[in-house]
């Protein structure tokens, strides 16, 4: 684990509140600050607003109150500003969301060539290197539908990395996987953390949280209940809600 306590703040969320169109109060004033190079794992029971919260970081969800600043750019309704933030923030989804009509390689090169206007040859070379890093270079010319779930999720991670993001968001990246494929995805994420990537991860994987996270954030009912380093969080949780959650997943 790299110590990066002195580094600059990458994500700063202050008092974020969100109501869904049906009136449901999903986020009730959430604060979170993520420093550069830090790995933050967000845990909590389902329906606690974890996914909704990290989806506000790249404006996949809007919010009504509070402020979010990503890499110095305040999130506003300005579309250009949103696209600029999305270029710097990679996201990995529970359902992979690979583009099934494109090959694995095309999935990786689509955004860099279109958005960053980089030459196709150069991007393809980098994409192949990334696929090498996630151990599926030999599948580069297959379609996503021909890969296993674990392979697809590794492609999805590589696809995000191909945009050279400053932050990576993971929204339950292993929840849709068969148990025997979880490890291969977690290993890739662990490797990424070791290289110093700033990561915010929503997950139920306790082992990953213990070994990789710098900080655990427990959310419940649209609020942050507890924030602590993993050793302290798992061995000596301060709040009743945290103890209850840990007893349920143990």
């Amino acid at each position: 684990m790299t110590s990066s306590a002195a580094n600059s703040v990458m994500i700063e969320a202050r008092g974020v509140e969100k109501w869904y169109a049906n009136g449901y109060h999903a986020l009730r004033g959430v604060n979170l600050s993520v420093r550069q190079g830090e790995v933050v794992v967000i845990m909590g029971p389902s329906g606690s607003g974890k996914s909704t919260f990290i989806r506000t970081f790249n404006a996949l969800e809007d919010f009504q109150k509070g402020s979010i600043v990503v890499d110095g750019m305040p999130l506003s309704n300005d579309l250009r500003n949103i696209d600029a933030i999305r270029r710097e923030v990679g996201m990995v989804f529970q359902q992979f969301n690979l583009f099934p009509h494109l090959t694995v390689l095309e999935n990786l090169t689509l955004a860099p060539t279109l958005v960053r206007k980089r030459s196709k040859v150069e991007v393809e070379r980098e994409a192949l290197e990334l696929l090498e890093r996630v151990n599926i270079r030999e599948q580069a010319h297959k379609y996503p539908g021909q890969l296993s779930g674990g392979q697809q999720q590794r492609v999805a991670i590589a696809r995000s990395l191909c945009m050279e993001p400053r932050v990576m968001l993971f929204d339950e990246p292993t929840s849709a996987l068969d148990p025997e494929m979880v490890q291969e995805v977690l290993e890739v994420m662990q490797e990424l953390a070791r290289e110093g990537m700033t990561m915010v991860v929503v997950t139920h994987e306790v082992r990953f949280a213990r070994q990789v996270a710098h900080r655990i954030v427990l959310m419940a009912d649209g609020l942050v209940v507890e924030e602590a380093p993993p050793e302290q969080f798992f061995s000596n949780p301060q709040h009743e809600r945290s103890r209850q959650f840990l007893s349920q997943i143990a």
Partner: protein
Amino acid sequence: MTSTPQAPLARLRRELFATPLDGLITLGLVGFLLAVAAALLRWVFFQAEWAVIQANTTLFAVGRYPIEQQWRLWLLTTLLAAATGLSWGLLRGPSRRWPVNDQLAAGILIVLAVVGSWALKLTPAIQLRWCGIAALMLAVRWAAGRWGHTWPMGLRRLVPLIWPLLYLLGMVLISGGLGLMQVPPSEWGGLLLTLLEASFAILLCFPLGILLALGRRSDLPLLRWGSVVYIEFIRGAPLITLLFLGQNILGFLLPGGLAPDRVWRAAWVLTFFAAAYVAEAVRSGLAALPAGQLEAARSLGLPMHQALIHVVLPQALRIALPATVGQFITLLQDTTLLSLIGLLDLLGTARTVMANPEFLGKNAEVYLVLAVLFWCCCAALGLGSRALESRLNPLTTAKA
């Protein structure tokens, strides 16, 4: 149902003559079908008088298009045949054996060109031309299937562009200009007018329908409600009403050059009408695509229009393809309504022929030929769509 390999006779016995009652029903139905077929064949070969068709082939084909200018239509037909063969071959790729559908289509084409043009008592020169055109299409199809895959990808991607270019060229060839003698729309007729109206509407209603479908799913209220009102208004009105309405008001609505006469006004009405239905087909495709696809594209930093063009539409249109082609087929058949507003399309021409005292009472012959002609056009559309579908691999569309 199981389909274990069995002697055909045993299978027939098991499926059609399992019990005495089954056998009775089978025999009754077969007898009925044979009787109908025999009556039809007897009528076709011995009672029907095909002179009504044979004497009017040119009229059915092109209306009153000037004879000395008809070489332009022959040229266009030849080009269309070559382009069809090319697209067909490339779509199928390099399999050595032709798929069953292709064999069927080729067979029907040869029968139509050889037997059809002989039965219509066309002059030997024109019979030869039709056979030549059919042979050209099949030869190009064979060659494109055989060697097409060796061409560079960039070149093959350009092939679909032939169609809009050919359409523009076709418009020049048909209507004149660029040094060719002008032939006004009032002289177009028959199959030429039917296909022209249908293809104009098909080509334009498709992009218009996509825009309407996107508009209906837009977050902008004005755009959304505008699209909803348009689609629901058009779908709520019978086409014939709109055709009459269009003849009266399109002159004011569209800029002067776009709808100068009845033929073009009707073409625009068909376009606007079909666009509403295509929009609903496309909307079903958009709705079937998981929301995660757009989210993934947007989270990679793609702006909305690029996310739509590169991620959403390629998949949504593939899902919507069968419904959209169904709409095109309906559109082709709807062109017969043009005869009611006084245009001489295939049906309009047929009505003038049947009104000719020389051919009174020959309606059955005329309608049968019309039905066969429409069936051929629709079958071609259907086969083309299925070829396109199987080419756009289902593996490559996101599952919900």
